[in-house]
């Protein structure tokens, strides 16, 4: 289960991950399995970032169970190969699911009535 601890509302956007976490996971969603150095070389074309920061971010994503990793042997010795745990769609669905469940847990019938009204208006 993906761990999401915080959702930020910045202006019109909703952020679940930090900007760098977001960039890293997006690369992994596109490429599937990659090592830290490869993610770093793709990322530094777009923004100023250090290799160490990419390694920190990947470990954070691993803690949040958004990525898995395994040790592989290649050029330069042992290294981690990171892969996304789920697709972008599954991740977004999981975030919505958690958010809605939390709202219902916290506000009970008020939240349920709100969602009912909201969806009936849409119809």
């Amino acid at each position, binding site marked *: 289960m993906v761990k999401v601890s915080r959702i930020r509302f910045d202006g019109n956007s909703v952020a679940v991950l930090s900007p760098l976490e977001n960039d890293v996971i997006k690369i992994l969603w596109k490429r599937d399995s990659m090592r*830290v150095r490869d993610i770093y070389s793709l990322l530094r074309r777009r923004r100023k970032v250090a*290799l160490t*920061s990419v*390694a920190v971010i990947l470990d954070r994503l691993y803690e949040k169970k958004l990525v898995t990793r395994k040790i592989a*042997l290649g050029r*330069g010795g*042992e*290294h*981690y190969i990171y892969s996304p745990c789920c697709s972008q769609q599954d991740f977004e669905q999981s975030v919505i699911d958690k958010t809605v469940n939390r709202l219902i847990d916290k506000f009970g019938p008020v939240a349920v009535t709100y969602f009912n009204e909201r969806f009936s208006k849409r119809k």
Partner: protein
Amino acid sequence: MIGCFAGFAIDIDKVLLTGISLALAVFFLLMISRTKSTKTKVGMIYGHLIMLSFPFVLFTTNFACGAACMSCYSDTMAMVSYALPSAVAVGTLAGFVVIPSFYMFSSRHQSRNRELVAFVRKYSRLMKIRAPKLYIIDKAKPIAFSFKSFKSAVFVSVGMLDILSKKETQAVILHEMAHIRQKSSVMKFSSSLLKLSPLSVLARFHHDTGKEEEEADSFAIRMQGTSKHIISAKRKIGMYH
């Protein structure tokens, strides 16, 4: 208990043995700061701890042997006198066998990186030490350390290999191999055991890890002919939060 102690105190041989062992404990303690070699220092530390715990062992044995003192077994003093030498024994066993074995076992595998293993062997020959085994730790945090007990070993995390270049990794390994030659882990462990001694304040001995670190860095710089790799490795490790 008082009867048993009085029996101990009036026995001139036992009192003499206690006095000699305590005097030796103080002698070893004062010699720690005056000796230069690590091996001798470690010997002095253990000599001090053994001599310091000897009167307790003697006192406890005295209790155990005297049939009239059987009730003294449940006494706290007797328990402490059993516990102190046992603590030294368990501590020593942990430091030299259990902790290194734990890391060697939990690291799961030795490095399969032939180039790096060959590098370790090459420099072990140059340093005239037994080639340490290179273990890989499954952690993203960049860490490296070494042990010198019955077998010596260098441990490096995968995270470290992920962020360091080949030359930087070699610099870190040379740094750790220098620690093995200095017997740093033995000295670190022994000096922390010394803190158990109530007389340790008399020793005016402080194990300076900073100096050892500097020496290990200098060794890596000497071997590589440049300081840039060890400096950049340390900077990268320092940046990891």
